[in-house]
């Protein structure tokens, strides 16, 4: 086992002194002990805490199943949806979960391109979180019309009606955006996991584990000829996923922005939605990472610096969100448009004003504390701010959808939306789905990208001065391997 003394010790590596580079993997862990620390989580006996958490999560998943069953057998009348608020909770929940799903791919793709090495500590489970959040999100449009047997209408599938979907509608763009995002996120997650699954395969003792990890690690041997193409593939995926992350919530925002409802019809929506999604996504990453590093003993790998960096991103995106709120209000007033003005007056003083104030407090006021480094490095404070952000982001979507739809142009078509108990239970149940998947992931898969963490450790880098006499030209930056490498014919040896 590792030579690191047991204990999950908190070490402060958040110094910003440029004269000393702060380590990302603490307490002198070497490759062996990184492997051990991470693999052990998937190898050790199931803990009581996990069983209890899993039982709770599965119970909520059961609630979701029951709610959906009730919906399908009875109809959408079980929800509070009405005319004009026909989108109701399901679309609020959809946008909320899709938003959560932004952090994972942002961490894996954008921070990869920016060479942010600290991403390696948290990218794996942030990506897992992304996928599970997108699964939760995808549930809601699927059940929203209460007729899941017609879900194939979403896709361009030749059918008996000889009809095709309407590609000029942002709702169909959404199908493609979320579908592509889900697919690419799964690919990214899985490709990143292959080397780590191979590690678990090579350490596995039981037959079943050997076979399962063996199949999913596709026979990975760590060959450097494979690594070469693998790294290129990873870079390409990152480059492809970067605009994709930004596009998904932009397209989701088109669902609103291309409509004419007051409060929706604004050009600020795409950047505002993307910033909000990253803000909410990082909040969820922190809500998961802070307990996980505690329970799994990963404080050396997900160090305080990692948490502080996430908090900084939350602060930055939270400020963009706050700025967007003020721009929205200002533009509504400055436009002189009667309906826009009323729409925002209604948000601030109407029947749903309380939700606007929850949103403003959680997203614009609460993150302000993160300006203080003391707060950013205090795990409890960061955790609580992240909880606020999650609540706030849910209410942001509630405000946008519910208040705008319930008070559109004609007072004769106004109506209030009141969620039913089934609405609330479905929302709670979607968390059950999310946590069930997440707990299974924590139990059976490598929660930290071991190979990537190892590659950023100081011992992963060669010391060129040692190689002068042996390999000389290999370390010249202009070295072209092809000029020297000429495959020779087999000479019948």
């Amino acid at each position, binding site marked *: 086992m590792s030579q690191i003394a047991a204990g999950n010790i908190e070490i402060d590596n958040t110094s910003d002194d440029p004269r000393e580079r702060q380590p990302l993997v603490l307490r002198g862990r070497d490759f062996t002990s990184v492997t051990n620390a991470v693999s052990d989580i998937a190898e050790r006996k199931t803990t009581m805490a996990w069983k209890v958490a899993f039982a709770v999560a599965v119970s909520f998943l059961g609630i979701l199943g029951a709610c959906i069953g009730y919906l399908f057998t009875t109809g959408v009348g079980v929800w509070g949806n009405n005319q004009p608020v026909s989108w109701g909770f399901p679309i609020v929940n959809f946008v909320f979960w899709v938003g959560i799903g932004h952090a994972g791919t942002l961490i894996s793709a954008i921070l990869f391109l920016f060479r942010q090495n600290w991403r390696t500590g948290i990218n794996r489970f942030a990506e897992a979180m992304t996928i599970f959040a997108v699964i939760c999100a995808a549930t809601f449009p699927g059940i929203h019309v209460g007729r899941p047997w017609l879900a194939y209408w979403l896709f361009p599938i030749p059918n008996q009606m000889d009809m*095709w979907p309407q590609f000029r509608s942002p709702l169909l763009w959404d199908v*493609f955006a979320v579908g592509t995002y889900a697919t690419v996120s799964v690919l990214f997650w899985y490709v990143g996991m292959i080397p780590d699954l191979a590690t678990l395969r090579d350490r596995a003792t039981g037959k079943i584990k050997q076979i399962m990890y063996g199949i999913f690690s596709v*026979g990975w041997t760590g060959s450097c*000829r494979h690594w070469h193409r693998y790294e290129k593939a990873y870079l390409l995926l990152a480059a492809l996923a970067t605009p994709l992350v930004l596009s998904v919530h932009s397209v989701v925002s088109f669902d609103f922005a291309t409509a004419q409802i007051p409060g929706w019809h604004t050009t600020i929506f795409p950047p505002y939605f993307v910033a909000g999604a990253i803000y909410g996504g990082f909040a969820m990453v922190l809500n998961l990472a802070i307990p996980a590093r505690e329970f799994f003993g990963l404080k050396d790998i997900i160090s305080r610096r990692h948490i502080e960096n996430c908090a900084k991103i939350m602060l930055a995106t939270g400020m963009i969100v706050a700025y967007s709120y003020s721009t929205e209000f200002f533009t509504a007033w400055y436009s002189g448009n009667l309906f826009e003005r009323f729409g925002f007056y209604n948000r601030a003083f109407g029947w749903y004003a309380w939700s606007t104030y929850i949103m403003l407090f959680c997203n614009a006021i609460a993150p302000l504390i993160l300006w203080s480094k003391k707060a950013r490095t205090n795990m409890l404070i960061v955790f609580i701010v992240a909880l606020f952000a999650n609540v706030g982001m849910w209410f942001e979507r509630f405000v946008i959808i519910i208040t705008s739809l319930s008070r559109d142009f004609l007072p004769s078509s106004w109506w209030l939306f009141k969620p039913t108990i089934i609405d609330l239970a479905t929302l709670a149940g979607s968390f059950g789905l999310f946590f069930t998947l997440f707990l299974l992931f924590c139990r059976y898969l490598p929660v930290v990208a071991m*190979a990537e963490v190892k590659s950023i450790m100081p011992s992963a880098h060669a010391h060129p001065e040692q*190689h002068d006499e042996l390999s000389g030209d290999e370390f010249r930056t202009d070295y072209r391997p092809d000029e020297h490498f000429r495959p020779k014919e087999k000479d019948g040896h």
Partner: protein
Amino acid sequence: MSTVATHTIEDTEDPELLGRVVTEEKVELVGLVAEYESVDDILKAAGAVRRAGFLRWDVHSPFPIHGIDYAMGIRPTILPWLVLVGGLTGTATAIWMQWYCNAYDYKFLISGKPVWSFPANIPIIFELTVLFSALTTVFGMLGLNKLPQLYNPLFKSERFRRATSDRFFVVIDASDPKFNEEQTTQLLLSAGATAVERVED
């Protein structure tokens, strides 16, 4: 394949020997596995093996090593070109699909929108370009690496399991034209190997 200690029934007429050989499994030397402890060691070893003129060999490591491509003389992969083709296929598919569905096969007037308007088609063109590129990237990478390959004689070596954890290995294939068990072993050891092991299949 150079075979070592492999006897077939045709080799002998002696019934006693025959009986013994038949029960023996046919074992071939697949290659030599040499273990190294650090990144510096493996880079030196890789340089030495390449300069010795070996062609069928590989380095195995728990993570991608910076500089190993140069040390081993690995040529750049064609993967990006495959991805370009995949991406353009996605673009073309999206344009064709939207034109066929809405402007040709089933013209449907809604909200006064033109049946064929490029701006409205951009989001799906973008999404399918990315989707096709990403699928090409992943399956292209696996294909070029000849994965999945669930059986590999290297998996028989207990020592080699550390290749996915904390050790670095040079594997030289016995089918390499320069391969000679004794000399190759010497070369690997002199390059700093902590152990050299035969892999048989």
